[in-house]
């Protein structure tokens, strides 16, 4: 009887160890940013900043200025242009990290091909009490647009900073264009959009 009890105890211990080993979160999961879920259309509040998506556009081709001259940018997928606004809560803050998480979990960083003179996220520091428009530009494969999530955080490298996760609605047909032109704006609104359907 005691042999049986010993074997049973051994098996139980092995099962417990196996369970613990496979349910321990990995280092990357432990040090991941704190998620603040939000829906599109309402501003998402974190301790350090407030972020809200205003409009989303989808285009097959993008025209943006480079060294003063407009330049056509093509892609094998689609261009997703997000017009948003952000404001700091209590301290000056710089938002530098934005990513798109597709429905299958793929993560897309902001496109680096467009220059930052258009008020792209990270080009301007946010001050408390002063909301500013921010522009985000992504290059995405067609099947990763529907049901995606926009992730915006202060920084991608500091663990445990808050990250806003906005579940994005599908882009309405009137916001889908063949070609989208971005031009430099003024101080108040750093960019201007023109569409060609």
């Amino acid at each position, binding site marked *: 009887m005691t042999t049986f009890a010993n074997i049973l105890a051994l098996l139980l211990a092995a099962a417990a160890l196996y369970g613990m080993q496979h349910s321990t979160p*990995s*280092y990357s999961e432990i040090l991941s940013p704190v998620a603040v879920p939000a829906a599109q259309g309402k501003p998402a509040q974190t301790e350090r900043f407030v972020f809200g998506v205003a409009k989303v556009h989808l285009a097959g081709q993008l025209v943006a200025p480079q060294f003063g001259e407009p330049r056509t*940018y093509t892609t*094998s*997928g689609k261009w997703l242009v997000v017009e948003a606004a952000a404001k700091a809560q209590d301290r000056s803050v710089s938002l530098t990290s934005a*990513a798109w998480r597709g429905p299958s*979990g793929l993560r*897309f*960083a902001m496109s680096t091909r467009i220059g930052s003179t258009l008020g792209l996220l990270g080009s301007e520091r946010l001050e408390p009490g002063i909301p500013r428009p921010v522009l985000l530009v992504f290059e995405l494969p067609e099947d990763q647009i529907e049901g995606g999530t926009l992730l915006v955080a202060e920084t991608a490298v500091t663990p445990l900073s808050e990250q806003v996760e906005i579940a994005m609605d599908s882009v309405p047909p009137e916001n889908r264009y063949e070609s989208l032109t971005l031009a430099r704006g003024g101080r108040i609104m750093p960019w201007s959009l023109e569409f060609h359907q």
Partner: protein
Amino acid sequence: MGRFVNGCESGVAMDEQRRSYRQRLIALAAASIGSLAASAISYGAAIYRAANPEPLRAAVPGETVDTGRWHVTIAGARVSDSPPSGRRPPEPQTFLLVDFEAGNRSASTAYLPAKLLTFAGLEAKLASPNFYLTRDKAFGPSLHPGMPERLTAVWEWPAGEMPPRELKLLIGSQVYKKRDNLYGASNWFDRDPVAIVSLTVTQEAARARQ
């Protein structure tokens, strides 16, 4: 806590001690079989892998090579006196360009590793290549998963020499470790080259100077 009365009793006690020593030794051996076996197997496997490395696969231009994180298809190599951005350097320089297509197979946007393309035998001579996106000649692009792109890798050739006609290009690989050895964090790590491509270097047609 008895006391040993005479030698006879102490003899028996010594026997008991020796038996218990042997028992303990046997118990120790039985308990350590697991860890000994694990060390032996891992050492043996490492030595075996080092003694029988995977042979380099010979690939041809146009063939897609799976390097773990990237799917690389080499198109061709050429020599030019200006980089793909079109801006000629002030002093005349020779550039070796390799056109290829790369697809990101990982789950997030990434930059091409410097060791993706190296030339066999020329590691000491050439610096790391610069990558240009063929689409708009952008420098140092990041590739998004699911969106393969055509790129050009550019090496600066030492002044005064001409690159040889035949070159062997090594395509490096990257493996994904869910837990690395230092922090237990997930990351991609460079590994040995997996394929070798023999390239014929073509001369770019001479451009008319202004």
